C-alpha cells in the first residue's frame, strides 16, 4: 500500500514542463538583454542631458529639471526640432499611405483570385513565388538597385527615356519630392505585396468552404461572395496586417536612408531617420533621439489601439446581455 502510494507520488513528480522552459529560455534571455534593457535605457536617456558617446560611457548624465525638457522641444513650435520631427512624421505617413493602400488592395484581389474555386487559375505556385520574391531580398540591396537605376544624369532609366523619345532631357528623379516619395512607396509596395498576399490567402483558406458552396448554390456572384463573405470573415487578419504594416511603416528607415538620405529638402526624411541623425550625426544628441523614440512609441501604440478599436468585432451590448440571459 505504502509502496504503491510512493510510486504514485513519484510518478506525479515527473514533469516535463520544465524542459519547455529550457527551450523558450534563449528567447527570453536575448529579449531581456537586447530588447527590454535598451527600451528601458531609452526611456531613461529621454529624460537626461546625454549628448555624445563620452558622456554615455562615463555615465555622468543627469536627469533634467523639469524631466520633460527633451519632450517639450518636440512640442514647442519655436524649437528647431519641432518642424523636423513633425515634418518627418508627415513624410512617413504619406509614404506609408501610398504604399499600404495599393498593397492591401492588390493583395486582396490576388488572394481572392488564387483561392476562387470557380477560377481555378493555372500555375499558381509560379505566380505566388514571383510576387513574393522581392520580399526575400534585403531592403538595402533593393535600395541600391533602384538608386543606380534612377541616378541622374546617366543611368538605365534616364537612358531609356531619352533613347525611346519619352523625354528630351534627363530627369533628376531624386530632386523631385513626388518622384522620391513615390519611388520609396513603390519599393515598399513591391516588396511587401507578396507577403500581404500570402497572409490573405491563409486567411481566406481558413474560411469554411461550405460557406462558399452555400453562396454558390444560392446564386451569389463572385463580387457578392467577396464583399459579403470573404471580407467580413478575414477581418481579424486584416486587423493584424494593418497593425504590423503600421508599425513597419512608421519605423521605416533603410530605403530612405540608402536611396535619398531625406532629400530633397527633408521631404523623404522619416521619423526613424530623424532619430538616427539626431543620435548618430553631429554632436550625437542621444537625449533628443531617445525622446523622439519615446514619442514615436506612443504614436504607434495609439495608432494600433485605434485600428483595434475601429476594426475589430465588438459584440453589441444588447447581444451580450441576450446571451447572458440565455445561459441563465
Amino acid at each position, binding site marked *: 500500500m505504502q509502496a504503491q502510494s510512493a510510486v504514485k507520488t513519484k510518478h506525479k513528480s515527473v514533469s516535463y514542463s520544465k524542459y519547455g522552459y529550457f527551450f523558450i529560455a534563449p528567447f527570453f534571455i536575448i529579449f531581456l538583454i537586447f530588447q527590454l534593457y535598451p527600451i528601458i535605457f531609452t526611456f531613461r536617456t529621454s529624460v537626461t542631458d546625454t549628448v555624445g558617446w563620452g558622456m554615455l560611457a562615463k555615465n555622468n548624465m543627469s536627469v533634467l529639471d523639469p524631466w520633460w525638457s527633451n519632450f517639450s522641444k518636440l512640442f514647442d513650435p519655436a524649437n528647431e526640432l519641432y518642424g523636423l520631427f513633425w515634418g518627418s512624421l508627415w513624410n512617413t505617413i504619406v509614404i506609408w499611405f501610398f504604399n499600404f493602400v495599393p498593397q492591401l488592395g492588390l493583395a486582396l484581389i490576388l488572394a481572392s483570385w488564387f483561392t476562387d474555386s470557380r477560377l481555378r487559375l493555372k500555375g499558381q505556385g509560379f505566380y505566388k513565388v514571383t510576387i513574393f520574391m522581392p520580399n526575400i531580398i534585403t531592403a538595402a540591396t533593393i535600395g541600391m538597385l533602384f538608386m543606380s537605376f534612377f541616378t*541622374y544624369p546617366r*543611368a538605365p532609366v534616364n537612358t531609356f527615356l531619352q533613347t525611346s523619345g519619352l523625354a528630351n532631357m534627363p530627369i533628376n528623379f531624386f530632386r523631385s519630392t513626388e518622384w522620391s516619395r513615390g519611388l520609396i512607396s513603390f519599393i515598399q509596395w513591391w516588396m511587401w505585396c507578396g507577403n500581404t498576399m500570402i497572409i490573405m490567402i491563409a486567411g481566406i483558406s481558413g474560411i469554411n468552404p461550405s460557406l462558399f458552396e452555400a453562396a454558390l448554390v444560392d446564386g451569389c456572384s463572385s463580387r457578392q461572395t467577396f464583399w459579403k463573405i470573404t471580407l467580413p470573415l478575414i477581418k481579424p487578419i486584416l486587423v493584424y496586417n494593418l497593425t504590423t504594416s503600421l508599425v513597419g511603416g512608421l519605423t521605416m528607415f533603410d530605403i530612405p536612408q540608402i536611396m535619398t538620405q531625406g532629400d530633397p529638402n527633408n521631404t523623404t526624411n522619416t521619423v526613424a531617420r530623424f532619430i538616427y541623425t539626431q543620435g548618430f550625426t*553631429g554632436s550625437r544628441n542621444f537625449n533628443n533621439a531617445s525622446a523622439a523614440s519615446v514619442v514615436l512609441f506612443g504614436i504607434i501604440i495609439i495608432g494600433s489601439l485605434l485600428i483595434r478599436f475601429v476594426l475589430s468585432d465588438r459584440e453589441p451590448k444588447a447581444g451580450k446581455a441576450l446571451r447572458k440571459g440565455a445561459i441563465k
Partner: protein
Amino acid sequence: MKKALAVVLAVMMLLGCVSIASAEDAKIKLSVWSFTNELQGMIEKYYAPNHPEIEFDFQIYPTDGSAYTTKVDTTLGANATSDEAPDIFTLEAAFVKHYVESDFTGDLKDIGFTDEELSVAFPVMAQIGQNSAGVQKGLSWQSTPGVLMYRADLAEKYLGVTTPEEFQAKVDDWDAFLDTARELKEASEGACKIVVGSGDIWNAYQYQRAEGWIVDGKLNIDDELLDFEELCKVLEQEDLTEKGGAWSEIWFAGMRGADEVLCYFLPTWGLHYTLKPHCAEGVTDGMSDEEMAKISEENNGTYGLWRLTDGPVAYSWGGTWMGINAAKAAEADDAKKAAMHDLIYFFTLNDDFLTQYAADSGDFVGSAKAVETILANGGTPNPFLGGQDHYAIFSKAAALANGSLMSEYDDTINDLWNKFVTLPYTQDGADLDECLANFKNEVAAAITTITVE
C-alpha cells in the same frame, strides 16, 4: 646525493622560469588601434624587426558607419587606463578633430616631442592635428595636398594649351576657371566639360575660406561660401558641367577616356588609388605601370595623358593621424614614453624611413623635410603624368593649404550645407535666404554644443 641534485635542478628550473618571466615583463607593451591594417603592416615591415623590446597588440575596427569612433569613445570614456584601451590610435580626417579637441588624446610634447622635431611636418597636416588651443596632439605620416588633374590632350585640342604652366594661367582663380569652362564648352560644342559636377569643386573650394565653420563656439558662414554657391549656380545654369556626382559612373567614364571631362580635383591618394587604376577599360589595381600603359593604349585609355597643376586654391583632402591616449601616457614610465615617442617619430617625421617608404609605396609623406630630400635626390618623374614630377606639384600645395579651417563637426556641417543650400539653390532654384535659414535650423538641431545665430 641524488636528492641534492634534484633540488639543485628544481631550483635552477624555477630560476629559469622567473628569469624568463622577468624578461617578458621587461618588454614594453604597446596597444595600437586603427581602422585599417595599413599601420600594422607598416610597423611589422619597417619597425618591429628592429625593436624586439616592444610587444605590439594591434586592434582593428573598420570605419564602416561610426563603428571605430564608437569603440574608441566608449572604451576611453569608460576606463581609459585599462589594459583594453589603446596606447596609440589612428585618426582619420573625418574624425581627427573630434579627438584632438577632446581630453582623450594627449599632448605629444608630454611623451618627449620637441618643437624642433615638430617643425619639419607640413603645416597643414600639423595644424589639423592640433586642438583649438594649438596643442599638438596628432601627427600624420602622409600628407594629402590636393591639386587639379587635367587631360593634356583635351586641353591642347580645345584650348590650345600645351604646358601645365599655360594651363595654370587658365585656372589660376575661380573667375579664370569659369571663363575656361565657358571657352571649353564652346570650343568642344558641348562635348567636353570642365568637371563632372559642381560637387567635385567643393573639396578644393572650401579651402578658399578665411575661417572655418565654427568660430568661438558659433556657426560661421564664410563669405567665400556664398561665392561658391554663385559659381555653382552659373555652372549649373550655363550647363558647364556633366551634372554628375563624384564616384558615379560618369565620373569614372571620364577617367577611362570618354573625352568628355577635362579636370578632376583630387589629392595625392586620388592620383594613385583612384585616377590611375581607372585610366582605361581593363586596368585594375595592383598592375605594373608597363601593363597599365599597354592596356591603356589598346583600349583608348588615358595613361600618360594626365598632368597636374596647382589649380585655383591649395587644399588638403584626407590623411591619417597618430594620437596617444592621454590617460595611459600620463601613467606610463619613461621607457614606455620613449617607446611611444620613437614609434610616432619614426613613422611621421623620420627622414630615412619616409624617403624609403615614399620610394616603396609612392605615397606622399607628411614631413616637409623628407619631401625636400626626395626632390633633391632627383624627384619622382611619373610616366603616368607623361614624365611630370608629382612630388614637386604636391609639395607646393602642401606648403600652402590652410589647416586651421577644419573643425570637429565638419563632416556633418558639410553634408548639411550640400543638402540644404547647394543642391536646392543651384539645382531647384530655391531662394538663397530660405536655404540659409533651413541650413541654420538643421545645424542647430544636429549640433547642440555650438551656438547658431
